[in-house]
């Protein structure tokens, strides 16, 4: 894998001057993933903060070919680009080796784009799909998605007198994609840049579809100061809310295993979207939260320690 020094010499394909917020995790995720391509790459984005903020006509922050089609179909769109590449390469009309990557937020990936993603993964296109997961529909103003954490207050799952924010646990998208028997799936975080770039390199290197689920904190949606993005991403990993793992040819492996998990409350208390959980009388909710995180973590550890592929690709 490339050293930090080598990475600094790779071109930045998403240039500065885009209109994403200060402290936005999405642009960090995209830049780190693109460093891992290390080859000509065509990028696609679902409708999202990323798309509207990087392509306000007539400007573009993309220094590599880029296409945005619609909200739910980044996977199908890049699949079409990749198919065209294969056809034209076979006919000798293109000679370069080109990589293909699609980016989507959690709304565009876990929810409305799930069918398109599933189809593209199953068909085996040589492409990387990256979900930058900030846990809500941030572009439209912080609405709940199936990636929103339990207990988070969003504009469509507000914490009220009777309902303490979102009542459901996050969908385990990486596991769902892994069950498509694709060669590479990983979960990563913008806080662990080396891990993320290495995973991106692996994702681009495999022959076939790869999926990366990258935690990308959102200061506006999570309600924390702009400068704490990396701290929040790191705590999500250290508390076990966002484990780092990879599934290579069906074999599950933890990328980071702390000796002891930090209490989930340490991550929750820094975010305004969870502040109602810290009001008097909500102690049982916090206990339930910790139980859920610990159980999910334990199940993941067991899955990884089993050392046997649950499903083998090919």
């Amino acid at each position, binding site marked *: 894998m490339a050293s930090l020094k080598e990475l600094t010499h790779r071109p930045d394909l998403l240039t500065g001057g885009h209109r994403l917020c200060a402290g936005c995790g999405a642009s960090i995720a995209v830049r780190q993933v693109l460093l891992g391509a290390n080859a000509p790459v*065509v990028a696609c984005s679902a409708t999202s903060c990323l798309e509207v903020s990087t*392509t306000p006509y007539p400007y573009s922050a993309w220094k590599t070919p880029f*296409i945005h*089609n*619609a909200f739910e179909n980044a996977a*199908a769109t890049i699949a079409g680009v990749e198919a065209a*590449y294969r*056809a034209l390469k076979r006919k000798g009309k*293109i000679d370069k080796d080109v990589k293909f990557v699609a980016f989507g937020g959690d709304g565009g990936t876990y929810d409305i784009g799930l069918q398109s993603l599933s189809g593209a993964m199953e068909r085996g296109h040589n492409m990387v799909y990256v979900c930058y997961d900030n846990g809500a529909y941030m572009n439209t103003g912080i609405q709940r998605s199936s990636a929103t954490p339990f207990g988070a207050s969003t504009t469509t799952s507000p914490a009220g007198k009777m309902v303490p924010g979102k009542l459901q646990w996050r969908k385990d998208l990486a596991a769902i994609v892994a069950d498509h028997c694709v060669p590479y799936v990983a979960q990563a975080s913008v806080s662990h840049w080396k891990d993320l770039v290495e995973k991106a390199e692996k994702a681009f290197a495999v022959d076939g579809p790869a999926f990366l689920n990258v935690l990308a904190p959102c200061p506006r949606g999570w309600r924390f100061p702009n400068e704490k993005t990396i701290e929040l991403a790191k705590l999500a990993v250290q508390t076990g809310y966002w484990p780092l793992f990879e599934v290579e040819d069906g074999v599950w492996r933890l990328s980071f295993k702390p000796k002891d998990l930090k209490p989930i409350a340490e991550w929750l208390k820094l975010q305004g979207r969870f502040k109602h959980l810290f009001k008097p009388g909500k102690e049982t909710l916090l206990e339930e939260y910790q139980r859920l995180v610990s159980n999910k973590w334990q199940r993941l550890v067991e899955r990884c320690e089993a050392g046997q592929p649950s499903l083998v690709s090919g």
Partner: protein
Amino acid sequence: MARTVAMTGNIGCAYAMKQINPDVVAAYPITPQTTIVEEFANYVANGEVDTEYINVESEHSAMSACIGASAAGSRVMTATSSQGLAYMWEQLYIASAMRLPIVMHNVNRALSGPINIHCDHSDSMGARDAGWVQLFSENAQEAYDNTIMAIRIAEDPSVRLPVMVLLDGFIVSHAIDRFDLLDHAVVREFVGEHRPVNPLLDLDNPVTLGSFSLPPYYFEQKRQLRAALDAARQVVKEVFDAYAAISGRRYDFFETYRLDDAEVGMVVLGSTAGTARYAVDVLREKGVKVGLLKLRLFRPFPARGVARALSHLKAVGVMDRSDSFGAEGGPVYTETKSALYDLDKKPAVVGYIYGLGGRDTGPTQIERVVEDLINVAGGETIKSPVYLGIKE
């Protein structure tokens, strides 16, 4: 050499696709289109084409992948029907806005609900404002010819728009018809090499497609789309001429039949033209001065030509195989009536809705229309729309 065959309309369309040999086909099965993509899948399986065939998981992804593949710089085709076209609706507008020359068959089928698999035009009429060229086919010959011509129209530098080739579900798609095929080499030379404009795969000249366009730009971009569709009229004419030179079959925006000396006339789309032509002959035998205008190009609508062709009539009956609920009549009726408005001496116009959900439309129904038109020519008024062959 060109040869005469007996094939269904769908197989004829698939065969034209084989001759065109597109780079990418992304498609999803739906009745009555399915036999097109099945037949094409056979060509792929047998190595008769060089196409990358994407078996997508939905029509939405079919058009999404077509957009990606066309934007990448490849020649792209697909096919659908009814619910599939409706499911693509969002993508139809994006394809035309990106000026992507995708060619798609839509085998006309009624829209749900209630669910029905048979022919009417409500699916493609729902897409008439999407910025696509729409070419209708009366029979398998026209469906085959339109497929080949559509490539040239779509890819013309002054057009660069997607084209929809329409054929009536089951009536044209599944009936075996006798028609003529061109040689592979003639078709390949006619469609030529695809020359994409600003493709994504030109890595040395990176482009951004599908930008976020705000009020200072969006309006002009849509205005340019209209300009391109208007320019398509001239290109369609040129391609029709070029095609006549290789096939001997001469097409126009519309075809008239015994209309020149007629007093009343009908406007139809698609396969019903055959029935109407037969009815015109029967009525002409009886001395009735009736004629027919069969539209081939619905988008862009050839308004001036249609108005000129109908201007001498006393009454016109416009046949719509789809309804536009809440409007004065079906879409062909409102287009035709609007086209006639600028004439000093206008024919009376009656709108007919017929054949929804595959209801059979025979010569008796056409004769009923002509009877009405003769009465209207004589001064009677008939309120539109009239529902033909309905039980009420």
